[in-house]
């Protein structure tokens, strides 16, 4: 019995303290280092924040370079396929441009009308005078636990924590971590994402919560509210971060596990360029 206990303690100690060959460090020393780094990072000392910001910037750039072969292969394949359909695509694009031209005229009319109505209501929105920054998605690593992307603009370009991020004017998420030359965007599909929204003709209020699945869900809907297919969901702007009326997606009339789901206008897995809105933040400021 005593021999067996000795065996256990020898094997245990050896597993923790063993060094030699490729094992330059003992596991125990590395575990202590990892715990030390973890608590330094979690309790967010000022010096550590700066270090983390620099490390993030460097690692994100290296990661972008390391991912280049993975990005280039599908793009090259796609480019080759597109080449054969260039003429057809050109015609289609011409038609789309014509369509957008007519829509633009319509939009201008609606914008003017909206401005005039706002003046009448005397409720001019502070966020209407906002700047935007076009950014490139550096890393889009798919994690089972966190749904986020890394963009190539940071505090140097005026990006701050909490700012909304859109693609084609559709809301996709917000900045949760701003470094000097890069930032992390928390997508609407992430489990940690919660934003107030408005939907339907009655302007019903709800909270759009990420579920970790492709479609976020509506929570805290008015009592007795029945979801119908295809109702547009907009940011309500009540938290003072997202501009009111920013389109997000359309409701889906699913039942059971997938009930109250919202199909986003933008597929969060297909992002290459996004826009950060440099608005004045009322609540979150870092």
């Amino acid at each position: 019995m005593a021999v067996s206990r000795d065996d256990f303690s020898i094997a245990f100690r050896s597993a923790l303290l063993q060094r030699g060959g490729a094992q330059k460090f003992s596991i125990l020393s590395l575990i202590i280092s990892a715990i030390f780094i973890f608590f330094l990072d979690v309790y967010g000392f000022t010096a550590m924040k700066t270090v983390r910001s620099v490390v993030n910037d460097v690692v994100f750039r290296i990661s972008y370079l390391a991912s280049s072969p993975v990005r280039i292969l599908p793009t090259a394949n796609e480019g080759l396929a597109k080449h054969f359909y260039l003429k057809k695509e050109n015609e289609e694009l011409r038609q789309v441009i014509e369509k957008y031209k007519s829509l633009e005229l319509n939009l201008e009319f609606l914008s003017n009308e909206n401005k005039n109505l706002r003046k009448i209501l005397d409720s001019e929105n502070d966020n209407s005078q906002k700047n935007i920054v076009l950014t490139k998605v550096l890393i889009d690593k798919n994690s089972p636990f966190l749904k986020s992307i890394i963009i190539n603009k940071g505090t140097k370009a005026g990006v701050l924590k909490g700012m909304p991020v859109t693609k084609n004017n559709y809301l996709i998420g917000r900045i949760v971590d701003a470094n000097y030359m890069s930032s992390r965007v928390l997508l609407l599909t992430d489990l940690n994402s919660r934003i107030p929204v408005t939907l339907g003709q009655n302007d019903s209020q709800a909270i759009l919560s990420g579920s970790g699945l492709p479609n976020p869900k509506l929570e805290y809907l008015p009592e007795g509210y029945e979801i119908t297919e295809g109702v547009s969901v907009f940011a309500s702007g009540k938290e003072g971060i997202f501009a009111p009326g920013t389109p997000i997606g359309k409701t889906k009339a699913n039942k059971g596990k997938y009930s109250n789901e919202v199909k986003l206008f933008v597929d969060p897995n297909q992002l290459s360029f996004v826009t950060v809105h440099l608005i004045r933040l009322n609540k979150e400021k870092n």
Partner: protein
Amino acid sequence: MSKFNFLNKIYNIGPVFLLYYLSISEVDTNLEKIFEIFTFNLPIIIIYFWILKRPSIMGTGHIFFSGLINDVVMGFPLGISSLSNLVVCFFSNYVRNKSINTTIASDWFTFFIALIFANIVFFSLLNNFSDTIISYSKISYNTFFTLFLFPIFWLLFTIYQMNFIGGKDA
């Protein structure tokens, strides 16, 4: 002879290279597009297998450093993946010290214990010291598929070891 040595070195750094590449690149083992719940943790399988079979080619420093890189890329608090990886590394070291001959079944069983402890460390730290919310169902799916796929990667890595690295087990 020198060419042979050079090739041997390249083959030897293969597992470490794969570990770093999975940490730093966009390549991931989150296959939710194929099947909604299909995700698994390949780095943990790599660490467990190579520390058990060939500790001479998988340094603990590399495991620690790749964990730090993974934390930066994924947005977790620094050091959390390193800790989780080192727990797996410790179990693998312990099993290697205690056993003479291992089989796929014994490795699978001990891997299960290592995986459970590594995940407990990872998620209890994340839950208690970070604001990040994580779905418990996703954790269990990830653990299940990692465990389920272990024998497949065990075979693949054994084939790699026999054909490119050679020699006997540690």
